[in-house]
C-alpha cells in the first residue's frame, strides 16, 4: 500500500447540546481514514449521515472537537494560522451547486484566479495566464475568461469550479456531490473530465455522493457512513459485490437498476424506518432498522473489523454469521 497522503484519525464533531436542554447531534464520530496518492475514495451515505460535515472537517473549514487530519504527515488542525494557509493549497473542494459557489460579480477568469490572489501568489498577469490555461484544461476556451457565471450552463459552471479548485495546484480535491445536480449526459462529461485530470495531474480525490452507481464507477475504495460513523470501508468492488454491513446491503438493494428484466419495483429492497430513528446510546446505530439484529446489537457498538484486504465493517454478524442465515 502506498504511503498515505491524507490521514484522518479519531475525528469527532458534535453540533449543539452544550448548555441547551437538547442533546445535540453527534455529526461525526470516531472517523479514521487514509487516502493514498493518486487514489479516489468514495464517501457514501444518506442525508444527515455526516459525509459533508466530515469533508468540511478534513478541509478545516469547521473545527473538530477531537482527532487529527494530517496531510503528508503535517497536522492540519494543530497548525499555526500561517501553516494552515499553506496547507490549504494542498487540498481543495468542489461543491454541488457550481453556480452559487462562483462569485456572480466576477468573470470566470477572475473567479478561477481568486484563490491565487487570496494566497498572495503571482502577479495579475500571471494569475490571468493561469486562469486561461486552466479554462482550456477543463474543456472550455481561454477567451471564456471574460464571461460571467450566469452566461454558462450548469455543466460549464462545474468546469469553472473545477478549474478554480486546481489553480493552487493541490494534491487532494474533495468533490462534495459535485455531479449530483447535473443531467445524466452532462454528468458523464464531468466525470470523464474528473478522471482525465486525475490521470494527467496525479491527483487524489475524496468523492462524496449519495449515488452509489457513480461512486462505484470512479472510486478505488468506498466508505459507507451511517449516523456519523463509517460502518463499512473497502475496495469499491468488494463493498458493492460482497457488502459486510446490513446498511450497505440495504443501500445497494434499494437502488433501481436500469434493466426491467432484472429489476421491477416489487424487487426493490425495503428497510424499516429512516435514519432519524435514534439509536440506544452505546449500541449499534443501525440496530433499530436492521433486519438481522440480534442480542449484542442493542447493547454494545461493533468496531470496524478487518475482513479481507482492506475491507472492514462494523457489524456483529461478521463474528457470528449463523445469525444472518437464521433470520
Amino acid at each position: 500500500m502506498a504511503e498515505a497522503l491524507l490521514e484522518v484519525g479519531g475525528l469527532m464533531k458534535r453540533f449543539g447540546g452544550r448548555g441547551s436542554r437538547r442533546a445535540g447531534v453527534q455529526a461525526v464520530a470516531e472517523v479514521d481514514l487514509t487516502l493514498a496518492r493518486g487514489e479516489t475514495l468514495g464517501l457514501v451515505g444518506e442525508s444527515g449521515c455526516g459525509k459533508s460535515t466530515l469533508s468540511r472537517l478534513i478541509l478545516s473549514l469547521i473545527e473538530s472537537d477531537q482527532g487529527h487530519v494530517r496531510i503528508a504527515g503535517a497536522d492540519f488542525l494543530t497548525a499555526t494560522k500561517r501553516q494552515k494557509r499553506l496547507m490549504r493549497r494542498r487540498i481543495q473542494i468542489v461543491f454541488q451547486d457550481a453556480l452559487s459557489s462562483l462569485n456572480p460579480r466576477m468573470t470566470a477568469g477572475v473567479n478561477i484566479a481568486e484563490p491565487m490572489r487570496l494566497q498572495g501568489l503571482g502577479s495579475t498577469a500571471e494569475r490571468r495566464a493561469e486562469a486561461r490555461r486552466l479554462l482550456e484544461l477543463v474543456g472550455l476556451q481561454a477567451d471564456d475568461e471574460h464571461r460571467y457565471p450566469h452566461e454558462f450552463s450548469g455543466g460549464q459552471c462545474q468546469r469553472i469550479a473545477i478549474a478554480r479548485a486546481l489553480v493552487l495546484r493541490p494534491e487532494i480535491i474533495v468533490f462534495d456531490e459535485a455531479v449530483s445536480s447535473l443531467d445524466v449526459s452532462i454528468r458523464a462529461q464531468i466525470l470523464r473530465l474528473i478522471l482525465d485530470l486525475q490521470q494527467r495531474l496525479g491527483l487524489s480525490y475524496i468523492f462524496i455522493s449519495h449515488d452509489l452507481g457513480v461512486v462505484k464507477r470512479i472510486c478505488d475504495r468506498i466508505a459507507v457512513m451511517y449516523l456519523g460513523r463509517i460502518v463499512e470501508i473497502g475496495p469499491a468492488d468488494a463493498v458493492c459485490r460482497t457488502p459486510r454491513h446490513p446498511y450497505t446491503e440495504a443501500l445497494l438493494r434499494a437502488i433501481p437498476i436500469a434493466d426491467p428484466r432484472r429489476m421491477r419495483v416489487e424487487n426493490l429492497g425495503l428497510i424499516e424506518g429512516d435514519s432519524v430513528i435514534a439509536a440506544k446510546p452505546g449500541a449499534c446505530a443501525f440496530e433499530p432498522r436492521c433486519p438481522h439484529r440480534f442480542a449484542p446489537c442493542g447493547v454494545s457498538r461493533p468496531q470496524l473489523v478487518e475482513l479481507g484486504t482492506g475491507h472492514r465493517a462494523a457489524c456483529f454478524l461478521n463474528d457470528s454469521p449463523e445469525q444472518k442465515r437464521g433470520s
Partner: protein
Amino acid sequence: MNVVSHKAGEITLQVRGLTTRFGTPARGATVVDGVDLALRRGRTTALVGESGSGKSATALSIMGLIEPPGRIIAGEVLLDGEDLLKLDEREMTKVRGRRIGMIFQDPLTSLNPALSIGQQIAETILAHQDVSEAEAKQRAVELLTHVGVIDAARRVNDYPHHFSGGMRQRVLIATAISCQPQIIIADEPTTALDVTVQAKILRLLHDLQQEMHASLLLITHDLGVVASMADEVLVMYAGRIVERADVDSLFHRPRHPYTKALLACMAGIEDDRSRPLEPIEGTAPDLTDPPPGCRFAPRCPVAEDRCRKQDPRLLAASDSHAVACLLAQAGPAHG
C-alpha cells in the same frame, strides 16, 4: 378501494399535438412541441428526459397549470372524450384533484406550512366531495394510514415541518389519491429523497396505482426508476417525444440515437469500472432558436445531412414501438 368496472389497458387520457409556448410569437420558446401520448387504465407511463426537455411543462399543460407568459397554442387533452383545454378555470378546478391527482417533486413547497396535514387533505376532499368537515378529517386519517403514516390519528394534527421528506411525500400522495382519481401525475416524486426512502415511495405509488386501477404518468430523469416502474416509456428531447416503447424494448432494443446515448452514459451500480463512460457531447439546443431538422442532430454520433434539414416524425415501427429518427426509420442498419 375503487370498484373496477373498466377494462385494463383502455385509454383514460389522450393527448394529441400538445404545443406549449413561452414568450411572444416573435420571440419565445416552444417547450412542448406537438406531443402525443395516451395513458391507459392500470398502467404506468414514464416520461423521461433531461432538464429543459419539456417533461414537466407537458404535465403542467395537461393539468391546465401553465401560467402566462406561457400558453398552450395547439392540441387537445381528452379525458373521457372531453377536451380539458376547452374548460374554463372553474371547470378545470373540478378536474384537478378529483379526476387527476398530482404529486410534485418538492413536498415541502407543495404543502402549506401554516396548515396541519389533516386540514390540507380535508381541504381537497371538501372541495370535491359533499361531506362534513368531521367526515373529511376522518377520511384524512384513513388516507394517511393507508399510505403508511404510523399513528395517523395523532399525526393528522401535525404540520409539514414535523415530517421527514419521505413522510411529506406520503402526505402528498394521500392528498393526491383522496378523491380516487383515474389518473395520477407524479413529477419527479422521489428525486429529492434518499435511495432507501425512494424505494418505499416507489413501492407505495405502485401498490396504490394497482389497487385503484389508475393510470400513472411518472415523470423522471432516472432510468433506474423508469425500468422498475414503467409499462410504457416516452423519451423526450428538446420539447418533442423522440421514442415511445414498452419498457422492455426501450431498454433492450432502443432505436433512437438519443435513447441509446442516454443508456450508454449512465453509471449503473452493476457496471464494470472498465467500461468507459460515454458522455453525450455538447448540450441540449436553445429552444428560442432550435436547430432545423432533428433537434438531436447537432449531438448525434450518426447524424447525416438530411437529419439537419428534415424534421423526423414519430412513426410506429411496431404496435408498441415508435421512433422519431430518419435513420432508425430507414432500416435496421442504424436501429
